[in-house]
């Protein structure tokens, strides 16, 4: 701290406490103490209050206790002379501020005024990917409010594998719109989540980005929380839940949670424009989490380390930053923030005329904004990657066979085939599909380019803006060449790309590609757990869930859905000492449960003895643990003699009496809980799905999202299980959200689980 900062932060904390206290009294008078308060779609109540104090606030009346905590953490401002120490006191006031702020936001939810409504007729493009998207969100009439558990979990894997190195909470308003956009673009290019809150004299960076037509939402990594400083509580809540979700921490383990964040969550605050008392107070709260603040104005610097890993508070007066113009100054400001938090970022230079970074992966290109599309309803597009003879590949060679799109009609469609030939001493045929799947992410990283699908159902759109900047067909090649080298340099030595728009050649290659797809399908089908000697570990998430180990086998992919056995194998080739290690299966102890001596030994060591034994195919006996990134949770419903499977996307109530979010608390954190298990959704299709417990026929309830999004595959499973109507016999949230509703449904449909041997 400094005495100036301490004085202002402590003053801010006291003020916001008084405000919260008065607001709560008024709210209780108007709505009653029993009025429900909650953030949407979270199992963590009010997450900061839950995480730090353990209080489960669900009613207005509960907030009184929380505010009492806030009050007990307040201190007087330091004196003008012979002041008493203030660092610890200011940090406490920071925590107090967070509790008060969360209390106020919760009361606003109770009044229905949060998420914040916003009126805007400009070019602001909200994405549909808000928390609980509704008409207001999708039409850009409201801001995001708190991030829900679903999104937190789906980002989990990206946060741990480094694709998303951290988050930056921007509070205030940039010096100009141009600077605002530049700051956000710089962060996006580094795939850093951008959380927006606060204002300076009523004007927020959110307004600035709206005016500049910047697309905001989960998909673009830019989340507009609210235009007042209090909405900064949402990023803090996000951080607190990281500790609860992935760190296996319990509510009320305040110190552990804060230290967890300091060590593992790479976040920092960018304070743009004048800093007022409340912002100082909120920054003091953030420092408790180890999150430093970088300001673009003159404020006192606090450079000693300890509470944060690096400096606490940095002042970089914007006009004093050396740079040829404001854009360069903005870039340097962002760089300093990353340094202060120690965020490690690998930037791949991709030589194309549009910005590039994984934050652009979620960008959409609407029909009206589209220059050209390949694939979709009106044309055909495919992508095919194969390994070739070492000498036949010329690294970096990009060939266009056929016309470019410059002469094609605007908003029109063209056929295209992307053929990638790779060579490398460590390349194996098995890695072809692993690498090919990356094309989707690589191409999507370009701003103004949208990539959907894969193989021969690829659909690519190029926006008018990108085309105007000079984006052409050759740039697909440039992207792929740069990224394959950067990400797969360990197995790929040479990359050559050919783009076919010439109809005859395109069709010829499409036929070759289809033959290869078919061959790969057969190869995958032949690959079983018994046909290989080694499984693979995935301990990527140990940076978040220190005792969790995924065991990935050919017939059971990682619970996040992002890593199958081949992915792990390739990853091990790329980084032999990384998180994916081969596990010698060793002797099979029980073929039905899928227990192996080698697997158990590995898991014991890698889980630091937290997990002793693990069964590959059972939910009942030593089920595999989970970090928190799981796509689905399976849970036994004893009354139905079966299991239910709820997907991350499904916010509804389940027959277990819990929503996905609540269940996730039981399933995650590296704990082994018989009867509950997190898994990847494609595991549902495996012959080994709960095979020790009776297999897929045990599924008595399944989120409709899964049923619909994997319809064909699930029908095939039903066919394989010898019960073609099985999927229809499985209930979902549309016909049963409790056991009482589930059992009659199953009986009426004649679900086979009812006649199976008892689970217990």
């Amino acid at each position, binding site marked *: 701290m400094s005495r100036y900062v301490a004085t202002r932060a402590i003053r801010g904390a006291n003020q916001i406490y008084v405000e919260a206290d008065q607001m709560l009294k008024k709210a209780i008078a108007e709505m009653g103490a029993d009025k429900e308060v909650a953030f949407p779609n979270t199992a963590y109540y009010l997450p900061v209050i839950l995480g730090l104090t353990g209080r489960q606030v669900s009613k207005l009346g509960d907030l009184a206790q929380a505010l009492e905590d806030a009050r007990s953490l307040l201190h007087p401002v330091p004196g003008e002379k012979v002041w008493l120490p203030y660092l610890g006191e200011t*940090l406490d006031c920071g925590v107090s501020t967070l509790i008060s702020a969360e209390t106020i936001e919760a009361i606003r939810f109770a009044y229905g005024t949060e998420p914040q409504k916003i009126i805007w007729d400009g070019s602001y493009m909200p994405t549909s990917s808000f928390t609980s998207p509704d008409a207001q969100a999708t039409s850009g009439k409201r801001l995001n409010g708190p991030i829900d558990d679903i999104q937190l979990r789906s980002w989990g894997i990206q946060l741990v594998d480094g694709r998303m190195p951290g988050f930056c909470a921007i509070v205030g308003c940039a010096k100009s719109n141009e600077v605002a956009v530049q700051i956000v673009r710089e962060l996006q290019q580094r795939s850093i989540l951008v959380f927006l809150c606060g204002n300076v004299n009523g004007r927020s960076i959110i307004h600035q980005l709206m005016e500049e037509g910047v697309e905001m939402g989960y998909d673009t990594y830019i989340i507009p929380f609210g235009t007042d400083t209090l909405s900064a509580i949402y990023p803090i809540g996000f951080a607190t839940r990281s500790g609860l979700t992935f760190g296996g921490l319990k509510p009320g383990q305040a110190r552990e949670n804060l230290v967890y964040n300091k060590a593992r969550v790479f976040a920092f605050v960018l304070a743009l424009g004048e800093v007022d008392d409340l912002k100082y107070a909120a920054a003091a709260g953030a420092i408790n989490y180890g999150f430093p603040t970088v300001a673009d104005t003159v404020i006192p610097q606090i*450079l000693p380390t300890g509470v944060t890993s690096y400096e606490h508070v940095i002042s970089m007066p914007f006009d004093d930053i050396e740079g040829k113009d404001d854009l360069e100054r903005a870039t340097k400001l962002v760089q300093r923030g990353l340094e202060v938090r120690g965020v490690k970022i690998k930037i791949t230079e991709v030589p194309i005329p549009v910005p590039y970074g994984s934050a652009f992966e979620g960008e959409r290109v609407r029909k009206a904004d589209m220059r050209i599309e390949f694939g979709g309803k009106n044309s055909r597009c495919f992508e095919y990657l194969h390994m070739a003879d070492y000498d036949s590949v010329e690294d970096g060679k990009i060939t266009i066979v056929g016309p470019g799109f410059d002469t094609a009609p605007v908003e029109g469609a063209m056929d295209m085939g992307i053929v990638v030939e790779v060579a490398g001493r460590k390349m194996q045929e098995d890695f072809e599909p692993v690498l090919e799947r990356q094309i989707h992410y690589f191409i999507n990283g370009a701003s103004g380019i949208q990539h959907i699908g894969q193989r021969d159902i690829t659909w690519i759109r190029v926006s008018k803006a990108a085309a105007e900047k000079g984006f052409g067909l050759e740039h697909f090649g440039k992207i792929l060449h740069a990224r394959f080298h950067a990400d797969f340099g360990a197995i790929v030595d040479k990359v050559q790309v050919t783009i076919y728009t010439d109809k005859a050649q395109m069709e010829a290659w499409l036929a070759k590609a289809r033959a290869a797809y078919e061959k790969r399908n057969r190869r995958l089908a032949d690959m079983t757990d018994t046909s290989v000697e080694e499984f693979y570990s995935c301990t990527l998430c140990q940076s978040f869930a220190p005792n969790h180990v995924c065991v990935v086998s050919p017939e059971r992919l990682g619970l996040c859905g992002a890593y199958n056995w081949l992915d792990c194998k390739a990853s091990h080739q790329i980084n032999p000492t990384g998180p994916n290690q081969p596990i010698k299966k060793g002797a099979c102890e029980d073929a039905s449960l899928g227990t192996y001596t080698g697997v158990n030994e590995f898991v014991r060591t890698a889980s630091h003895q937290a997990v002793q034994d693990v069964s590959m195919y059972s939910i009942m006996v030593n089920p595999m643990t989970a970090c928190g990134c799981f796509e689905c949770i399976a849970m036994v419903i004893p009354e139905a003699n079966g299991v239910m499977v709820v997907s991350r996307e499904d916010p509804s109530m389940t027959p277990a009496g819990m929503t996905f979010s609540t269940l996730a608390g039981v399933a995650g954190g590296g704990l082994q809980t018989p009867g509950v298990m997190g898994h990847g959704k494609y595991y549902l299709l495996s012959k080994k799905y709960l095979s020790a417990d009776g297999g897929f026929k045990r599924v008595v309830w399944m989120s409709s999202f899964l049923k619909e999004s994997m319809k064909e595959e699930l029908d095939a499973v039903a066919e394989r299980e010898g019960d073609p109507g099985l999927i229809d016999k499985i209930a979902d949230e549309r016909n049963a959200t409790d056991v009482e509703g589930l059992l009659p449904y199953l009986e009426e449909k004649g679900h086979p689980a009812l006649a199976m041997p008892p689970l217990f």
Partner: protein
Amino acid sequence: MTEPQKRTCDPAVEQLLRIAREDGVQLAWDRWEAQQPQCGFGQLGLCCRNCNQGPCRIDPFGEGAQLGVCGANADTIVARHFARMCAVGASAHSDHGRGMALTLLAAAEGHAPDYTIKDPRKLLEVATLLSIPTKDREVKDIAKDVASRALAEFGQQTGELTYVSRAPKKRQELWRKFGVSPRGIDREVVELLHRTHVGNDQWFESILTASIRTALADGWGGSMFSTDITDILFGSPVPLKAKANMGALSTDQVNIVVHGHEPTLSEMILVAVNDPELIAYAKTKGATGINLTGLCCTANETLMRQGVATIGNFLSQELAITTGAVDAMVVDIQCIMQALGPLSDRYHTKLITTSPKVHIEGVTHVEFEEEHALEIAKQIVKMGVDAFPNRRRVFIPNETCDMVAGFSHEYINYALGGMYRGSFRPLNDAIISGRLRGAAGVVGCNNVNDCQDESHVEIVKELIKNDVLVVMTGCSAQACGKFNLLSPEGAKFAGPGLREICETVGIPPALHLGSCVDNTRILTVLSQMATEGGLGDDISDLPGAGFAPEWMSEKAISIGSYFAGSGVYTIMGGRSPIEGGKNCVRFLSETLEERLGGKLEFIVDRGEQVDKALKHIDAKRAALGLPVYDPKRFGASGDSTMIKVLDHKDEETFNLYSAKVG
């Protein structure tokens, strides 16, 4: 006669020395002059009168007798003297600790109704350290067990003191390896005295080793219990503002001065001076109220917890009386000059001894009993009030300084991160980065051989200028309190890195940790720093040093020895009492360092003391692989730029986006 400004650097004392001269009273300095020349054999530690065949004296020049009657050589005689000093020092602090434990027991058993458990959290913490069950138990039952357990450690005969486990693991192992892990507090003292009997232990090495063990029984035993139990009874200190120096005496209120080392009575006197009846009574005597201040460590105890002003340290005690404003001086134990008796007769001051262990011929004795603590305190305060009308000439020097005191190791932990993030990590980080070059403890007495306070103040100034954070206790802290070094504004004397730390935490560059018995707080801080990580894994790995620049009491020898035995390079200022035994000098320095990583050295020259300490700190930094200390790298934190920019706030060109103004 020495000029007053050479006797002291405290401006208040200097003025009062002139008054005393006018009044024709003899003070410590005068008596010291009357003692000149002092015995050269005694100064070197070479005079032995341990048996009735002596005194025997060893000729330091090698010409005369080299052996005593029994055959004891210079090293044996010097070592035995050192051992006896150590034993007496340890017994003083430990007996103080025992007193606190007895008070706690009395309070828990309901025999001392005026005492309560003010810090139950600390009680639980101490109980846990002592493996005393706490779950679902009443506070007073836990307190009783803690007190009994503490008392048992005094009489323990074998094994190890429980608090040994508070030291870093590696330290404990070293103690065991070299046989200095203390077994029982009283046992070590008695055994050490036994060793010094004629014809007993006659090898300097084993005598000095046993001295270290006895000192450790004090530091990690008696004294540590004293600190813990005092905190339990009267509250763990938290920072507070207070006044230092004679100006805190009042011209129109009754001045009660507490002096000595124990808080048990003074805490009650504090209650008594606020008693409305007594205040009303004082008014009937023409006073406007009752003002409590203190001297020496009793003052430090009430300062740390209640913010009671300290009017001076050891050498100030007589001068307080010469102000003519002290109506009652209440003394308990240790460092109370017999001279106060006759001196108080010259003035109107009512001097009252209170401890059954401390009587002064001719001085009123009101024996303190815990059962009637408050009642006795009131009786004593009333005696002061009754003396008020007898005041004659009053001269109170207009000298006070503001200070912030009240740093316990618990608070330092809190200060560095608050309720949730408190730890020693920021302190260790500061040393690791080189923002702090290291840390030092500066403690100890006044010594009439030195200009009062000068060494304390100058050494501390030099250390903080070199970015060494200072922790202080006792008379040394009181000295620095008089010179603004315990005020947060004192950061202006600090080097750039330490100034950043002071501004960040809001602390003074020198932290007052309490009375001399509270040096154990420093041991705890050192242990926590060593276990926090990044600075090795033992106290002896830390870049730090300890000083007792103006020491004079035997307690200081025990303190110095337990710091050295705990791995700290400890420098004692002034004349060396072991100079006559060259092997003793080498043993306490080189041999001790080889075995236990700490050493005890007596160095006269102040500049040399600081130089050697800084070299030691730099060597420890190098051994840890830390960056070479370079103050130029630091100092960019703080409010100054912001304040400079805000000065232009009313101007049209005001621009918060730039620090370039003016």
